[in-house]
């Protein structure tokens, strides 16, 4: 196999891995997809080492090993699904390396398909529904709706300015606690605890927790532990934000 072609295949595999990892796929799925992609273009002994913060990929002793740094991770499962279907097509043999590269580059450019106002609306609705699920009264639906929406909007807004997720989450949960407390004290809501619990649910790191467990069980100890730490930090941020509100009043 020619050197240039090997390089091309490596680039395609790395790009696929990068997109998946940045958008919330499990580590073992990233490794699996990269190996499959490589195999479908004739490289059977590809080695990859994937952690939440970087990918190391090597095909044989001849070409240099490549490394990609992952600095930001979000949840955009649509992109994961897109890459998944590209790799599926590739392993069926109906996608040339050039086409795969082009499609992946297209997938990388896709933004978050849901516009931000819709995301905030979804978070607000989810907060209200969680309140009912946790046995709250319908009278508290609107307060949970408002504080959940405000909290989520706050997180998106702060994350835009402060690139540290911890502070964005802390501030968001502080907003939630504060609005819930204000609404209860002026008599719009009745059960403060339930309103807060319902409203913080959209901030809960669900994808990270599930991925952490799946990775740990699949034997990806480093990834599992670091994702577990990520989830723990988020949970801690949410807890701290709420705790500050409680400490004030």
């Amino acid at each position, binding site marked *: 196999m020619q050197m240039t072609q090997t390089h091309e295949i490596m680039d395609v595999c790395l790009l696929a891995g990068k997109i998946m990892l940045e958008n*919330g*796929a*499990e580590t073992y*799925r990233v490794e699996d997809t990269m190996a499959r992609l490589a195999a479908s273009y004739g490289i059977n002994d590809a080695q990859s080492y994937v952690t939440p913060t970087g990918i190391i990929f090597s095909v044989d002793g001849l070409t240099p090993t490549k490394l990609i740094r992952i600095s930001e991770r979000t*949840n*955009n*499962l*649509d*992109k*994961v*699904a897109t890459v*998944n*279907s590209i790799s*599926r097509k590739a392993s069926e043999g109906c996608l040339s390396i050039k086409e795969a590269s082009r499609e992946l580059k297209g997938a990388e450019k896709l933004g*978050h*398909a*849901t516009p931000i106002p*819709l*995301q905030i609306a*979804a*978070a607000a*609705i*989810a907060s209200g*529904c*969680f309140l*009912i*699920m*946790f046995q709250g009264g319908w009278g508290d639906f609107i307060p949970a709706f408002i504080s959940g929406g405000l909290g989520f909007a706050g997180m998106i807004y702060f994350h835009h300015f402060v690139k540290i997720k911890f502070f964005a989450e802390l501030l968001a949960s502080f907003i939630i606690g504060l609005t819930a407390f204000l609404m209860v004290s002026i008599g719009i809501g009745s059960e403060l*605890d339930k309103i*807060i*619990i319902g409203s*913080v*649910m*959209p901030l*809960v790191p*669900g*994808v990270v*927790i*599930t*991925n952490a*467990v*799946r990775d740990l*069980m699949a034997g990806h100890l480093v990834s599992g532990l670091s994702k577990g730490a990520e989830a723990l930090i988020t*949970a801690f941020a949410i*807890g701290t934000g*709420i*705790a500050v509100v*409680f*400490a004030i009043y």
Partner: protein
Amino acid sequence: MVLLEQAVTSFIASAAFGVLFNVPRRSLLPCGFVGMLGWLVYFELNNVEFDSVVATLVAAFVIAAISHMFAKRYKLPIIIFSVAGIIPLVPGGLAFNAMKHFVQNDYNAALEMAAKAFMISGAIAVGLVLSEVINHVLRNMKKV
């Protein structure tokens, strides 16, 4: 009536989470369905006096099993379905109460609740993995 209320709200909440995680549009309704089913299993088991850890374990198992079916049918990664289903089971309320007691210097109650929240998180994990393991065993048995 209570059950209907729970079914509707859990369906909407799970689908809304699908929107937040930007799942492909065609999988939104299945996401809501997985979440609803998981929550109803949890809710009913909790109602008939099962411990919430056991209820969570069973619900997580059901969610993973159904997610697997959907993943095959829609040819999408399983995580799309299981994540939406798992969210309602995450012990947010317990963790919140634990935090609240910590702040109020009531460490005994706080530790008790934190331990319970930890147990429930573990139950979610075990439920998910158990379902996957059984699925693997079944697939391998078919091959033999």
